[in-house]
């Protein structure tokens, strides 16, 4: 290895790549679970607020925060994808090839996750929360 890598840097680097791969879809999972459960359970109970907080506001948060998370993961995956090129490196092409593949997969996953969160946001704009 041309660059000295402390164990901590290695750990952070490895985990950062995983965030770049799975961060977006994790954010989407949070979005789907939160937005759905807030909506179904609050409406079933006949509330239009969540402990005093308006339901639309809660749902908006359940859209916007995950969207921010997915965007961050997207940025990380772009970074990783650009920095890890198969021919970039230090002769160990199997690791760079693997990391490049993962970054590529992450790039697409994050884009897709962002699209799903955005479409959910569109639904939240169009439909009143408790309409059946």
């Amino acid at each position, binding site marked *: 290895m041309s660059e000295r*890598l402390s164990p901590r840097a*290695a*750990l*952070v680097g490895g985990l*950062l790549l995983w965030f770049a791969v799975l961060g977006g879809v994790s954010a989407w999972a949070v979005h789907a679970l939160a937005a759905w*459960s807030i909506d179904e359970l609050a409406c079933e109970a006949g509330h239009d607020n969540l402990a005093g907080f308006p339901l639309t506001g809660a749902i908006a948060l359940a859209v916007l925060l995950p969207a921010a998370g997915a965007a961050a993961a997207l940025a990380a995956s772009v970074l990783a994808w650009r920095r890890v090129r198969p021919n970039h*490196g230090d002769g*160990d092409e199997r690791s760079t090839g693997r*990391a490049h593949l993962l970054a590529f997969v992450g790039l697409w996953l994050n884009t897709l996750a962002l699209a799903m969160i955005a479409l959910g946001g569109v639904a939240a704009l169009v439909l009143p929360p408790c309409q059946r």
Partner: protein
Amino acid sequence: MSGRPDRLGTTAGDLRTATGPVGLVTEEPVGRSTAWWGMTLFITTEGTLFAALFGSYFYLRFQHGAPWPPDGIAEPELLLPLIMTAVLVPSSLPVLWAEAGIRRGRRWQLRAGLLGTLVMGGTFLGLQGIEYSEILREYTFTTNVYGSLFYAITTFHGAHVTVGLLMVCWLLAASLHGSFGTRRHERVRVVGYYWHFVDAVWVAILFTVYLSPRL
């Protein structure tokens, strides 16, 4: 790990290398045994089961609406569950200590640690029995959905504690048989993981079943 003297400097340097090509290609996790992976995945799937169970609890609770607990059942008492927590959660420590011991080749430490866990886990089950004997007078698992949830969640966890204790007994027996040492203690490690998992689930139960109705 990293050099002490200029901690800030190394941190910035670490971050730079971590986000560079060399850092990003780090394999993580790496070098684990098949037993480690097998137990990790088993705990993952079991954890999903408990997550679904807790999800069901909240789904049923919020679909049911107030009051919760329904039908005049009192909010769960906290004293006994807190004592149970105080017994069960620290029982992870003897397992850790036992594992640390066998890593240095100290079989006596392994055996003593496992024995400690066994005693604490057994105490927990005994306390759960006492709790049941009190609560059963008020309501049972057929009373209503709350009763069903309470007994299903706690019994299911109790069954996991029992399985965990059986595993610890089995380890203890194997340790008397003389199979473990500094190089051979994978079984101790993975049983330890299972036990920590059982502990962690109890913390989630404490929140879900005992504390959340008071929120």
